[in-house]
């Protein structure tokens, strides 16, 4: 984690929450989590492409069968932007 973010990451704020999730050295994946498939160099890209290619057939099958995980949002309720609650929900893949 860059040192200039130390203050921000400790804050009880949406930014702090997002930074703690972003720099968590051992993130715990739960079904329904939104995952950012991030990369930097060519090695990352190749590992990512191989991962996607490996899980893609099962993911497509799962989608076709309607067995899609419900979205999971770990944002503490007091930090959730109020305007988000007024938006309509996207179509459910399930």
């Amino acid at each position, binding site marked *: 984690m*860059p040192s200039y973010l130390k203050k921000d990451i400790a804050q009880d704020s949406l930014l702090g929450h997002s930074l703690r999730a972003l720099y968590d050295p051992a993130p715990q*994946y*739960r*079904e*329904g*989590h*939104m*995952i*950012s*498939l*991030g*990369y*930097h*160099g*060519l090695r*990352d*890209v*190749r590992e*990512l*492409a*191989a991962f*996607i*290619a490996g*899980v*893609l*057939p*099962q*993911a*497509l099958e*799962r*989608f*076709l069968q*309607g067995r*899609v*995980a*419900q*979205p999971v949002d770990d944002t503490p309720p007091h930090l959730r932007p109020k305007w988000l609650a007024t938006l309509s929900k*996207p*179509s*459910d*893949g*399930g």
Partner: protein
Amino acid sequence: MTAFTHPDRSLTRRIVAAASDATAVNGWLVRQLPLLFQRAGLIDVRARGFFPLETHLQSFYASMADRCAEAAVKAGVVTESEGRAWLHAFHDQGLKDLSSPAVCISSSGAGSRFHEAYWRMTDGYTPAKIAYRELRSAIGPWAKTNGYARWTGTQAGWQKPVEAQQQLLFKFEGSSFASPDTGHSYHGLIQLEPVGSKESTILRQSDFARCLVQAEPR
């Protein structure tokens, strides 16, 4: 704005200026920000500039040469053949003269101070077009074998008809507010639509990550 070393200074000036005007809503915004902040009532406004400097043709800012040339051609500042010749000379210089390779400097603020962390961030960065190529290479053979065709208009998307006159489509796109070419992460999208609807009607849609199964604990 990105600056390039190039044997044709005059043409380079025209291309860089055209790209600066055409590829950003306001290419002067960064220079104007300190004054705008002060006028808005902010106090203690300070400005620092960061200049990443890259010397490899495959680097992120070197790849901006293609976009700058394209923007200059579209803006009518240079002809298509001038743009092509400029790019050719730029690449040729980078390939032949290893002692003085192509150098690209990008300014992102007023003043100048080389920032080591920024250097580390951009050095070795894989542009989105390379990342898309790797995705196509990894997924393409499987997709073809399983009856998928490329999803027109996407960099890494495929589609195939499934039951009940429906079409299954999936794609991976770079996440970037500025441009899909400069992203550093993907998200995947899977959707089902009637055959021939061409995205006008979407029956179901899901983020790729939501279709993944949680690994069993060992």
